C-alpha cells in the first residue's frame, strides 16, 4: 500500500461560520490502495491524534463536493465512486479543536473492498453493519497506516 | 413447453407508489416476495426520473435489482404525448423518433418488449421495426377495449367518434408480424370485461344516491344492449346523468371481444395485461378468488388451449372505486394482486 495516505499540510481547525467557535479539526486522506472503490465500502476510520482515539460518531467524511456525512450515511452511497486520486477530508468534532503546532496523526481506513466473495466474513460484514474499527485492520485493502506529523499553523 | 407465466405491472400499485411508499426497488422485491414470481412490467414515466434522459445510475441500479431478486424485465409501457411541443402536434416522424428512443431505453434496462399505445398509427410502427430489431426489443401494440379482435365496422366505436385509433389494428399487426418477429400485440383483458364488481356497485350507490336506479341497471344490464338500457334509464330516472362516468361504468360493459377470439392472435401475443377490478372470494371454492367482471376461467382455458407461452402481468385498476372512502377502507393493492395471482395459479399459470 502507498506510503502517504494522510496528506501533508492538510491539518487545520474548523470554525463554525455561525458561532465563530472552533468545533473540531480536519485533515485529508487518500485511499491506501492502487485503485478507487465505491464510497459505500468505506466502513469507518480509526483516527488517533497524539495518542487520543476518536470514536466513529465524532467523525464526518467529506468527498465529491457533498456535505459532511457520517459513516452510516456512506453506506447508502452504493453508486458513488471514491476516485482513486481524490483526497477525502476527515472532519473530527472536538470543541476547541487542536493546539497550534505539531501533532502525530494516524488515520487507518476500514474498507470493505475485497477480491470477490469471502463466504462467512461477507455475511458478517453485512449483518454487523461494520466491524471493530482498529489500528491494525486485517484484510485486502486495509493495513495499519503510517503515522504522520502534521502541523496546525 | 409452453407455459403461462405471471408478472405485475407497476400500474397495479399506483396508490402505494403515489404515496411514496414503494420505490422501484420495493416494487421489484414485492413481486418476488408476495407472489414468488419474476415478471416485471414498468410504466416508464412512473419511475424513470428525468425521462427521456435516463441516467446510467438508474440503468445500473434497475438491472442490479432485477438480478438481485432473479427477476425478468418483461414489458415496458411507453406513451405518446403528442402535444409535448405545444406549438404543434407531433408529426408521425416525431412520434417514431420518440418510440425509437423508448425502444433504446427499454433495451438498456433489459426489457424484452415495449408496449405502445393503441392509438399509434401503423405508419409509426413501420418506421420503428428496424430499430426494434437492432435493439432486440419486441414492439407490441396494446389492444384495449373498445378495439375489436374480429373487426366489425358496425361496432367501430372510434370511427363513430372521428378518432384516429384504427380499429383494424389487429389485422394490420397480423400482416406486419408475418414480416418481423419483433412486432406483435399486447392484449388487455379488459377486452372481455362484462360484469360489475361489488366495489363499483357500492361506489355507484354512494355517487348516484338513488338505489332504485342502481338496482334497475343491475337487473337489466345483462338483458338489454347497453345503448337501450342507457336510454331507458334516462327516461325512467330523468334526474340521473347517464353520461356521468360512474353511471356509464355501471351500464356499459367494456367488452369488445370474446375470449375465443384470442385464438386469432395467439401466435403474435408478446405479453398480456391482466386487467382486473376486484378479486372476491369464490363461494364455491373457499380460499379461492375470482373477478366478477372479467371471465378469467374462460380466458385462461383459451390461452392454455392455444399454447400461449409468455407472461400475463397484473394490471389492477379498481382503485378509482374506493378513492372517495377513508384510507382504511380503500383497496389494499398488494392484497388484490396477491389474490389475482392465487387465481392465475389455480387456473394453470406457473
Amino acid at each position, binding site marked *: 500500500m502507498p506510503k502517504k495516505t494522510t496528506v501533508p499540510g492538510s491539518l487545520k481547525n474548523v470554525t463554525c461560520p455561525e458561532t465563530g467557535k472552533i468545533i473540531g479539526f480536519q485533515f485529508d486522506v487518500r485511499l491506501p490502495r*492502487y485503485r478507487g472503490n465505491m464510497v459505500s*465500502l468505506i466502513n469507518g476510520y480509526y483516527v488517533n491524534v497524539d495518542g487520543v482515539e476518536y470514536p466513529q460518531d465524532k467523525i464526518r467524511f467529506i468527498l465529491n463536493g457533498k456535505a459532511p456525512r457520517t459513516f452510516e450515511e456512506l*453506506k447508502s452511497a*452504493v453508486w458513488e465512486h471514491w476516485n482513486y486520486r481524490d483526497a477525502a477530508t476527515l472532519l473530527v468534532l472536538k470543541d476547541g479543536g487542536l493546539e497550534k503546532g505539531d501533532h502525530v496523526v494516524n488515520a487507518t481506513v476500514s474498507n470493505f473492498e475485497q477480491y470477490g*466473495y469471502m463466504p462467512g466474513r461477507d455475511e458478517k460484514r*453485512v449483518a454487523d453493519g461494520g466491524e471493530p474499527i482498529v489500528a491494525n485492520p486485517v484484510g485486502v485493502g486495509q493495513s495499519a497506516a503510517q503515522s504522520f506529523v502534521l502541523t496546525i499553523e | 413447453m409452453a407455459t403461462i407465466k405471471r408478472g405485475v405491472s407497476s400500474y397495479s400499485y399506483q396508490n402505494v407508489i403515489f404515496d411514496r411508499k414503494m420505490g422501484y426497488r420495493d416494487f421489484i422485491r414485492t413481486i418476488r416476495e408476495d407472489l414468488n414470481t419474476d415478471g416485471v412490467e414498468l410504466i416508464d414515466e412512473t419511475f424513470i426520473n428525468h425521462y427521456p434522459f435516463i441516467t446510467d445510475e438508474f440503468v445500473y441500479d434497475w438491472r*442490479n435489482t432485477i*438480478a*438481485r431478486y432473479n427477476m425478468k424485465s418483461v414489458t415496458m409501457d411507453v406513451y405518446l404525448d403528442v402535444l409535448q411541443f405545444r406549438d404543434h402536434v407531433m408529426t408521425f416522424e416525431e412520434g417514431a423518433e420518440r418510440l425509437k428512443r423508448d425502444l433504446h431505453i427499454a433495451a438498456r434496462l433489459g426489457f424484452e418488449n415495449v408496449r405502445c399505445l393503441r392509438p399509434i398509427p401503423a405508419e409509426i410502427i413501420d418506421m420503428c421495426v428496424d430499430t426494434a430489431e437492432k435493439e432486440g426489443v419486441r414492439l407490441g401494440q396494446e389492444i384495449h377495449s373498445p378495439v375489436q379482435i374480429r373487426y366489425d365496422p358496425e361496432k367501430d366505436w372510434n370511427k363513430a367518434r372521428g378518432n384516429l385509433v384504427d380499429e383494424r389494428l389487429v389485422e394490420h399487426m397480423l400482416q406486419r408480424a408475418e414480416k418481423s418477429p419483433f412486432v406483435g400485440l399486447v392484449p388487455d383483458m379488459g377486452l372481455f370485461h362484462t360484469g360489475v364488481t361489488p366495489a363499483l356497485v357500492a361506489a355507484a350507490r354512494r355517487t348516484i344516491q338513488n338505489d332504485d336506479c342502481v338496482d334497475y341497471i343491475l337487473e337489466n344490464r345483462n338483458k338489454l344492449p347497453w345503448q337501450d338500457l342507457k336510454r331507458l334509464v334516462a327516461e325512467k330516472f330523468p334526474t340521473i346523468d347517464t353520461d356521468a362516468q360512474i353511471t356509464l361504468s355501471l351500464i356499459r360493459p367494456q367488452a369488445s371481444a370474446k375470449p375465443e377470439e384470442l385464438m386469432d392472435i395467439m401466435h403474435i401475443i408478446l405479453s398480456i395485461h391482466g386487467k382486473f377490478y376486484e378479486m372476491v372470494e369464490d363461494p364455491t371454492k373457499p380460499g379461492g378468488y375470482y373477478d366478477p367482471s372479467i371471465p378469467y376461467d374462460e380466458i385462461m382455458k383459451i390461452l392454455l388451449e392455444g399454447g400461449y407461452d409468455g407472461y400475463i402481468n397484473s394490471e389492477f385498476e379498481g382503485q378509482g372505486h374506493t378513492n372517495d372512502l377513508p384510507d382504511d377502507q380503500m383497496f389494499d393493492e398488494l392484497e388484490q394482486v396477491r389474490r389475482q395471482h392465487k387465481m392465475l395459479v389455480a387456473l394453470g399459470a406457473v
Partner: protein
Amino acid sequence: MAIHRGVSSYSYQNLIFDNKMNHRDFIRTVREDLDTDGIELIDETFIDDYPFLSEEFEYDWKDTIARYNMKSVTMDIYLDVLQFRDHVMNHEEATERLKRDIIIASRLGFENVRCLAATPVDVIEAALPTAEKYNVRIGQEIHAPLPLVVNPDTVNRLHFTAPIDEVDRVIEMIERTGTKHAGLVPDMGLFQHSLTPIMFEFALRSGCPAESVAFLKEKKGTMPDADLKVIMSEKFGEETVAKMARLITTQGSAKPEELLKVCPYIVSIHGKFYEMVEDPTAPGGYYDPSTNYAEIFKYLKEGGFDGYIDSELEGQGYCNDLPDDQMQDEREQVRRQHEMFKALGAV
C-alpha cells in the same frame, strides 16, 4: 506467433498515487521507456466516477492509445461483493457487474477483461453472450496459491474463495460451451521459487534479528511453510515470526512445464515480479531472483503462446518504509524486466 510485451498500470502504483503519472503519462511511458505497445489497465485507478465512464475519458483514452500507436490489451476488473452493504451481491448481480465492465472495456478498445480468480465460473458463463456481442474476452486470473495441475497430493492453501480445481472448471466450461471469449490470465507468481533481497532487507528493517533472516533465507523452500513457521517460532519467538509471516508463507503453486496444459487458453499474462537484479553472469543483463522466467518463456514458446505478457511490479510494499529517494524506482524496474523479456525472445 510471438510473445508481445506490455505493462499493467499496477507496476507504477506509487507514481500514480503521488499524482506524478496520469493515464496519458502511463501510456506514453510504456512507449518511450520500453518501445512496446501493450497496455493493461486497472479500471478503478484511472476511470473516475466508475462505473459511469465519461465520454471525455473514453475519447481521451482512445486518442492517447492512437497517438502513441499502442494497444489496449487487458482491463483488470474487480468484484466488490459488499457494494450494496445491506446484502452480499448474488451471482446474478455479479454477472450484471461483469457485463457492465465488458461494455466499459469495449468502449475503451480493450481486447480482454481480467476478472478475479475468485469470480465464480457460472458468473463468467452467464456473461458470455455479452462478451461475444462486444467481442471482449473474459480472462480469469490464475494466481498463487491456485495450482495449475491438481493431483492427490495437492495441498489446498487458498486464502480466497475458489475451488482448488478452478483451472479445470474454467477449461471444462470453455470446452463445453465452445466459446472463444473466455480464457485464463495466469499470474507468474504461480512459479515463484524464492524470496528476493528486498524482502530480507525489509525483514531486517522491521526489527527481525539477522540470524532469523539468515535462517529463513537458507531454509525457505526446503520444507513445507507450515513446518518452517513452527520451527522458526520455537527458535526466534512469535513476535519475529509475525513480522515475517508474509515471507514465510509466500510461495508459488505450479511448475513452469505445467504452462503447456493451459497455453491454448491463455488470454494474456501477468508478468509478476518483485525486483530485477543484475545478472552476474551476463553484465548489463537482469534477472528475477524469485522466478525462473527463462523456464517460463521456454514453455510459453513450446506451447505456442501468441499474446502479451504485461509487467506487474509488486515490490513497492517492501520499501515503502524507506525515505523517498531509497524506494524502488518503478520505471527502472520495469525497464529491466523488459530487457530480460527481450533477451528471452519476446518481440
